[in-house]
């Protein structure tokens, strides 16, 4: 039962990804062509409101529903890791037109071929874990 809330939040996530056309390959292409404000508006406004959320967490105004303080673990720093990993991710994002959230939402839409992308992404994560120690971070 404790998982049902995550299922419901996931449904909201899937619906907003679909209804705002974030799962559309064309919207991602349009974004990287700078031909629409749509995706920039979405990410920008989410970040703006996200900043307020983070401030409320940090100032302990908002705690978890169980009353615990909310800490956001810092991201791992490292220029190579973030820049090279980011570039590789961006190449894939623009080709697949989907990042790791929309991939699953597209599956729910009934797009069979996205299974190949999901398999590839899992394989990619496996390859990273395997060759991690040989990569610059």
């Amino acid at each position, binding site marked *: 039962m404790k*998982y049902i809330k*995550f*299922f*419901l*939040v*996931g*449904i909201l*996530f899937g619906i*907003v*990804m*679909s209804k*705002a056309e974030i799962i559309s*390959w*064309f919207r991602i292409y349009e*974004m*990287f*062509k700078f031909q*629409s404000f749509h995706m920039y*508006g979405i*990410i920008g406004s*989410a*970040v703006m409101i996200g900043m307020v*959320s*983070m401030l409320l*967490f940090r100032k302990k105004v908002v705690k978890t529903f169980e009353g615990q303080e*909310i800490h956001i*673990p810092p*991201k*791992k720093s490292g220029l190579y*890791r*973030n820049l*090279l*990993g*980011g*570039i*590789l*991710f*961006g190449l*894939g*994002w*623009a*080709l*697949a*037109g989907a*990042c*790791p959230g929309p991939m*699953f939402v597209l599956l*729910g*839409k009934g797009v*069979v*071929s996205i299974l190949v992308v999901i398999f*590839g*992404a899992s394989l*990619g*994560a*496996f390859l990273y*874990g*395997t060759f*991690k120690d040989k*990569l610059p971070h």
Partner: protein
Amino acid sequence: MEFISQPWAWYVAGPVIAFVMFLLYYFGERFGLSSNLETFCSIAGAGKFVDYFKIDWKQNSWNLVFVAGGITGGFIASQWLSPTDMVALNPQTIQDLADIGIQNAGASYLPDEIFSIETMLSVKGFFILLIAGVMVGFGARWAGGCTSGHAIVGLSNLELPSLISVIGFFIGGLIMTWFILPLIF
């Protein structure tokens, strides 16, 4: 109902995504999709070969449930909340895509030239989908996050690593869109 059935504007979608993130932290977890890919590897038994995947993946079950909800949400939206599958693209985008060999842009959510069953069953089409996926998965885990973990959470939390990663996302995305995609189709 009119409000639900038409495509949602950016100023609706952005706040809803921020609300999703807020709820996940309020429920004691976090917002990050790409870590599920590592969980899949662990469930599939990758820990037998690589120590990196020897984790107690049951701790991440909540995120798998979140993903299951996302799949369900995608189903609900496409079955009952979307009277049309058309995407109102910039006419210039449609023209640019026609020029590189992708027809009917915006007639549906996805181009047949990449996602149709026939394309998937061709050697070239299959490898395009597979390689795109590998780059997303490898890159996201190398960078330590994807669009959710870095672009939304990391930027909201003013994290420098996330800013660098998002700059990387755009360098890669621009190279693919402007220089590589025109060569593929």
